Every structure is written in C-alpha cells, then in structure tokens.
C-alpha cells in the first residue's frame, strides 16, 4: 500500500495559471467590440416629390440645372441645362461613380459655373441671388438601387441642397441611345 507522504512531500500549489483565460477574455472582448460598432446601419433621408406637385422641374432655371441619367452598368449620362429645346439637343456625356474623374467633377463644375454666372451677370433678368445649383436625377429602368443611392450620396458629398428624383422621359432615353451610338463609332 502506498504510504501517504508526510513531512518531506511536495505541496501542490492550488494556484491555476490564469493567463490563457485572460487571453480568451480579451479575444472575445475584441470580437464584441468590433461587432457592435460595425453593424450599425445608417439612414439616408429623402423626400420624394409628391404626385400633386408636378411643376418642380418647370421652375428650374436653365443655367443652374444638371441632369443625371442613370443607366445600365452603373453608367451616368449627364448634361447641363434643362435640355427641353428640341432644336438644340444638349451635349450628353458619359461618366461613372468614382472618387476621381467621375460624376463628382461634373457637379463641382456646375457649382463653380453657377457661382460665376451669378457674380458676372448679377442684376440681369433671369439671374437671382437666390439661385442654387439644381440637380435632377433620372434613373432609367435598367439602373439599380445602388445607382440611386450613389447619386443621392453624391448630393450630400458635394453639398447640393436642391435635387429631385424624377422619372425619365423617352426623349432622354433617346439621348442615351444617341450617345451610346456615337461612342461606339469611335
């Protein structure tokens, strides 16, 4: 029979090494910290033009307007002005949502042009101090929700206060087709 050691026997320590437990604790903390901050969705507020107010577009002055036509494959066709004169079709150009050299440049140019025109032609008929750059967003049926949110986001980024989402017309679909045809010729 084994003898119970006494006297010279080693005393086993009751202490447990807690280092791995602390490691695990901090690992989990890091996990929860990241999940809490990352999964907070934000909300982008928009006010859609009510059906009863259809004259919004008619009030826009020609020199303050920029129209963005959202099309397939995240393309944007844009032109300055209202473009309602059938004899002089607007110059339509194509661009994309990009941080550099995208649609933002067109918006910045519009803001600059509007401010310059206001200073230069102050007091002339049709030019008022209260004129602001106005952007009309017209998504085509082959655009996606992503395009719409990107366009609205671009308004926020560039500090554009006056913008509206408007239905696209067949005339504008014609602009897109004409631009596509012209670009494929090159």
């Amino acid at each position: 029979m084994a003898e119970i050691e006494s006297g010279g026997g080693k005393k086993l320590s009751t202490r447990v090494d807690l280092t791995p437990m602390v490691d695990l604790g901090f690992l989990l903390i890091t996990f929860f910290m990241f999940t809490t901050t990352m999964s907070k969705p934000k909300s982008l507020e928009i006010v859609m033009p009510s059906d009863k107010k259809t004259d919004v577009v008619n009030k826009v002055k020609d020199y303050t307007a920029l129209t963005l036509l959202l099309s397939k494959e995240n393309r944007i066709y844009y032109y300055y002005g209202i473009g309602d004169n059938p004899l002089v079709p607007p110059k339509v150009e194509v661009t994309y949502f990009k941080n550099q050299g995208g649609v933002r440049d067109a918006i910045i140019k519009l803001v600059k042009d509007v401010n310059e025109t206001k200073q230069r032609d102050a007091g002339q008929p049709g030019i008022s101090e209260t004129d602001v750059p106005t952007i009309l967003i017209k998504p085509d049926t082959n655009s996606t929700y992503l395009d719409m949110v990107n366009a609205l986001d671009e308004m926020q980024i560039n500090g554009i206060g006056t913008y509206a989402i408007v239905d696209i017309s067949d005339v504008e679909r014609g602009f897109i087709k004409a631009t596509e045809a012209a670009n494929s010729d090159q």
Partner: protein
Amino acid sequence: MPKHKLPRKSTHIDMTAMCDVAFLLLTFFMLATKFKPDEPVVVVTPSSVTESPIPPNSILLTLDKDGRIFFDFDNKAAKKDMINDMNTARKLGLTPDECDNFVRGSSVGSSLSQLKSFLSLTSADKGNFQFSGIPNDTTDATLDNNELVYWVQEARAFGTANSSDGKSPRICIKADSKTPYPKVRALINSLTKNEIDRFNLITAAEAVPEGTALWEERMKSVKTTNTETHN
C-alpha cells in the same frame, strides 16, 4: 559580517485581477451588443456618407433583389394592435398564438391570404418558407386593393397611437444594391400616392472622400468644437 541572503522573487504575476477585468468588460459588451435580427432574406445595402441613425418607431420595408417586399415594425405594441385589427377586418382567421408569433417574429413578406400558413409554422420550419413578398399591385390607380399600402396604413395608424411622442412612424426602406430601379420606384410610388413622401433609406456607413464640400464642412465643425472646448 553576516551575509544577507536575498529571497528569490517569483516572476509569476497574479492574473486573477486581470481576469476579473477582462470578463467584466466581456459581460458589458455582450449585453450592449444588439445582434442583427434574423432576416428572411439576405439584403446587401449600398453605403453612403450619411451619419444619421435609424429613427426609433420606424416601419421597415425590406426589398430584396428580386423585388419581393417584406414588412417589419420595431414598435411591438403597435404591431400587436395592428395584427388584431387586420385579423378582424380582413378575416385572416389567425389564432391568438399566431398573432403573438407575428408580434415577436421578424419581417414577414407574404400576401394576406398566405399569412396564416406562415404564422402557423414553428420557428424551425420558418426558414424553409417560400416568401412571395407583399403584393404591390400598381395596376389599380386607386390602390384600394394594394396590400402593401394597407400594411403601411395600418402600421402608421397604430404606430402613431402607440408612440411616445405622438409622431407617426417613419418609413425605412432597406433595399438590395442589385434591386432594379423600377421595383424601388413602384414601392415609393404606391406610398407617395398616399401622401407619404418622407423616407429613410437604410445604408451602410462610408467615409467621406477628402477634399469634397461635405468633407470641408465636417472638418470645419470639428475645428470649431475643438476651439470651443479649449476656450
């Protein structure tokens, strides 16, 4: 001179206190974390630079990439009232258990006629249910038979009655990046026809690109708050 014998010190540190702190923090984060509610469909939202959070007491309309619409409402009391009202008004034939199932559950996306067959399922079978989405019939100009409009009207009526500040609930639209625009337009159109024209589009957060107008504005506001605190 007698020699002093220095006792050898152990290099071990007592980890108990650190362990306590670690687990205290862990408990805090676990309790503070709000996990994503289980959603019937996976929706990848686009991102935007906006910083405003989702308002409380809001109706959530989820729109997946096939254009199916799902309804949810974070006001449980209003949800309870609205399902009871819808049950009697539209003769859905739901049992009290099924109504309770609706109140506690997450998004639903089925026509009113299919609602009972979904709510009678146990939570294990719910994952296999094939949602058809809430019908948004836009062919009828009056929208009297449009179920989506009916859902939203009910939710707004009971949401206003059950809100703490008496305001009518906001409409949040959570759509997938790939949702075709006509589907979004149809959803918004049905609601604007009913005098609802303010929407919150749910997006993920995104950094503001440097050098833009918004970026400069935010930098300015950061600077002013800094100087204010220094003065």
